[in-house]
């Protein structure tokens, strides 16, 4: 089971600001800048972010509108996978996490009345999960293309057609227990700053940018986290 541990995550100020709705070019209030600087420093220096990803690839034994069956008896239900990569002859299940540390520290800040600091650190954590997911997908792509296969961009449970309840299957398939990620009884990932995803493997796998994903999302109009087109209309 492949585990990726050597990913280093650099989060820039703009990454965090974008998620708070603030234009990096805009003048920032000193108090906000100070909190962000401190949080960036805290995140960078104290090992609060421990990025790790686990994945496994499987050959598909059959795909229908209802989902996909995998060698070894695994299965992922939902219409999204057959819809976006009908040509896949295999799948990669992946789970990544930045660990528990940052989340605990955010809680401490909130409990100590340091709301601004907590808010910024949490934003850094969410950005880190995004960056980690992208980088881990890139590694999977490199490793599989060395074997001659192409990979798609990832889809996440919670997207229409891939129910959140499928997280349980994905965790099992990715053997997420090995990196310390488990599920709550309600199907949520623990540690919380984690993400799960599925990648299609085959010939001509479709790829898309985050901007394209955002453009299709039901939150596209007002989500602060959305990636907007470079030229604004």
């Amino acid at each position, binding site marked *: 089971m492949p585990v990726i541990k050597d990913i280093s995550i650099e989060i820039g100020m703009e990454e965090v600001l974008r998620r708070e709705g603030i234009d990096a070019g805009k003048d920032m209030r000193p*108090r906000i800048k100070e909190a962000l600087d401190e949080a960036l420093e805290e995140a960078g220096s104290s090992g609060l972010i421990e990025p790790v990803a686990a994945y496994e690839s499987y050959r598909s034994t059959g795909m229908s509108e209802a989902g996909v069956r995998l060698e070894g008896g695994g299965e992922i239900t939902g219409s999204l996978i057959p819809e976006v990569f009908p040509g896949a002859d295999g799948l990669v299940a992946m789970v990544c996490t930045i660990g528990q540390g940052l989340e605990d520290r955010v809680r401490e800040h*909130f409990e100590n009345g340091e709301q601004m600091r907590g*808010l910024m650190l949490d934003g850094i954590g969410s950005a880190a999960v995004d960056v980690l997911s992208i980088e881990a997908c890139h590694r999977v792509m490199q490793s599989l293309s060395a074997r001659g296969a192409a990979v798609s961009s990832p889809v996440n449970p919670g997207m229409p057609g891939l129910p959140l309840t499928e997280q349980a299957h994905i965790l099992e398939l990715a053997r997420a227990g090995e990196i310390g990620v488990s599920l709550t009884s309600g199907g949520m990932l623990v540690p919380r700053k984690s993400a799960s995803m599925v990648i299609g493997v085959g010939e001509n796998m479709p790829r898309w940018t985050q901007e394209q994903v955002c453009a299709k999302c039901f939150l596209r109009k007002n989500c602060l986290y959305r990636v907007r087109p470079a030229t604004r209309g």
Partner: protein
Amino acid sequence: MGDDLVKALVDLDEDKVRDVVKSRLEAGDDPLGIMDDARKAMEVVGDRFAEGEYFIPELVFAGEILKDMTTAVKPYLNKASEQKYMGKVVLGTVAGDIHDIGKDIVGFMLDVNGFEVHDLGVDVPPRKFVEKVQETESPILALSGFLTLAYDSMKETVEALADAGLRDKVKVMIGGGQISDEIRAYTGADEFGKDAMAGVALAKKFIAAE
């Protein structure tokens, strides 16, 4: 003088707020009047936020300034006029959901606006909400959730409240992500709020109607 304070807080001028509050208190100004100006200013901050002029960090910053102000004014309030909590609110992210930052901001803004907030954290089962409402006799229950799945948990929480015979004693507001009036109707909640300031306005409305 009041306008100075309102403007300074609206502009998030931390130092100016501190100075104006200090000089007004030293001049023997009514501390309740000072807090009333703060309330007016927070309404304007809320409007700026709603209009997209201010973002979450600015809202939190305003909350921090307000918190410091309240601390400064407190010793000047005599027992009779000492501000009582506006009311109690039980708050949490519903079962099956872990998104908490929106809830935390709502909790903070309720707190600095004078509410006694009992935050149960994330992934909170309906039973826990009901128990806390019973224990604190809180007239307001605030539920947060960002996942589509959370709507069912919200509905179950409202039902659990009814099963415990508390539905007519407790006002329920919900918020988070894509919450709309349709979802509010589905869950059986009384109101929904788009952001933390809407949550504060709703909580005030609930208390006033009591």
